[in-house]
């Protein structure tokens, strides 16, 4: 097992599992929480994340296939996606390809939002282009049909594009496709403007 990422609540490993290339997301014990509480939270979140991934797949958006959920070790074993993170290559593409990718992103988020799925951490690091466009890391996700939640989701994506990528047209293309595929996009746009005014979600996107 090779550790590939250490987050605030989980460690991500790359491994072999039953002969398959997999990614294992393990929620680590937090020593500051009492054991009963800590285990319950990690168990519930592991289940919820897996559930949300399954829902996303049902909505027609690609996510890694889940092979196994272990609620003792608090881990999700999922398919390894051997593509490239959007963050790492989109700046090097020509505008035509950029536009195509951005439109795929907008369309996928529209599908999630219309099915009540809020990803919770929409950055270009959490999108992988392989045979299809895959979304990963639903650890902060939730079910919601509220435009407020959708606005927060889209606002973060906007910040991610503005902070990490040079071409400011990128998010415009994302939102264009989002609007064409989601009836409530105008209302979400208004929410985004409201959220910008609050100023509190400003963040350093990595």
């Amino acid at each position, binding site marked *: 097992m090779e550790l590939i990422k250490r*987050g*605030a*609540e989980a460690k991500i490993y790359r491994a072999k599992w039953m002969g398959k290339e997999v990614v294992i997301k393990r929620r680590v014990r*937090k*020593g*500051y*929480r*009492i054991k*009963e*509480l*800590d285990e*319950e*939270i990690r168990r519930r979140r592991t289940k919820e994340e897996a559930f949300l991934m399954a829902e996303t797949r049902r909505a027609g958006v690609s996510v890694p296939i889940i092979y196994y959920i272990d609620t003792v070790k608090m881990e999700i074993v999922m398919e390894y996606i051997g593509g490239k993170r959007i963050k790492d290559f989109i700046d090097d593409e020509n505008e035509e390809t950029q536009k195509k990718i951005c439109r795929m992103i907008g369309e996928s988020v529209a599908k999630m939002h219309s099915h009540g799925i809020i990803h*919770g951490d929409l950055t270009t690091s959490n999108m992988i282009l392989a045979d299809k466009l895959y979304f990963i890391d639903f650890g*902060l996700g*939730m079910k919601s049909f509220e435009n407020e939640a959708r606005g*927060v989701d889209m606002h973060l994506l906007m910040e991610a594009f503005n902070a990490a990528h040079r071409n400011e047209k990128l998010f415009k293309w994302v939102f264009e496709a989002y609007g064409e595929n989601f009836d409530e996009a105008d209302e979400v746009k208004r929410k985004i403007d409201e959220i910008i005014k609050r*100023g*509190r979600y*400003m*963040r*350093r996107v990595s």
Partner: protein
Amino acid sequence: MISLGIEGTAHTLGIAIVEKINEKCKILSNESRMYKPAKGGIHPREAANHHAMHLPSLLHESIKKAGVEIKEIDLIGFSIGPGLGPCLRTVATAARTIAIKYKKPIMGVNHCIAHLEIGKALTGSHDPVLLYASGGNTQVISLLEKKYRIFGETLDIGIGNCLDKFGRAIGIPFPAGPHIEKLARKGRKYIPLPYSVKGMDVSFSGILTAALSLIKNESIEDMAYSLQETCFSMLAEVTERAMAHLEKEEVLLGGGVASNMRLQEIMKKMAMERGAKFFVPSRQYLVDNGAMIAWTAILMHEAGYRMSLGDTKVRQNFRTDEVEVKWS
């Protein structure tokens, strides 16, 4: 530079004299009086009356204790918000009166920023993520691009408010926090309560409702223990998220609830597990106090901030990110 600071956003009236000497914060006096309601929670008008009544004597005490003459004071600071309207207006009126009478410059200070600045000044923390946990406020604040931004906060009631309401239901007087802390030490059994973290935000009203519905069947010690463990773990989690996100390596505590030893222990452990530094000022600078207002007023004045009387209108919903931090 010597500054007089008046704090009065909620139940505490605080008046302090602070000197900035060799870039350090020297507190010459820090006096306070707390309004305690006869029953129930804070009544804003009653609290304001309390402040009005105690202001003159407290002012004299603070000046006397500091051993300074009023003419030696260079600046009058006061808490301009956020807080309860009647309390803010009472304190603002007092500050304006003093400023006019003695021809001193006046400075309205953001209460939440003041908590952060006094914590930094007294603990030696440089660039912290602040967990500000008090009765009305529960926020995770940190400096990013010249503003103290709120990265997480309560979506409904403050943590202290949650504890007070729970206390009231089991017959504990206001403020209930210290009593609940004592009870919780005797608690053994963890009773599951909703754990409500949404991204970097928290919510306490659902936990309170659940706890209140369970007190009939469980011992109050176990209930107090479970309530503390649940709420404080949530606070540690959102603070950790903010730290990870901002890549900051210091955590600072502020607010009255932060004087709870169990909360301090949890936050310290969180910091240790991530290899971060933990800072907490002593209790009298965690709770609302005049020193934090006086000190922040100096920082603002030295950074070039000036206020005319017209700028001193109180701001009940004053957010930290509305102030440009020119001094840091």
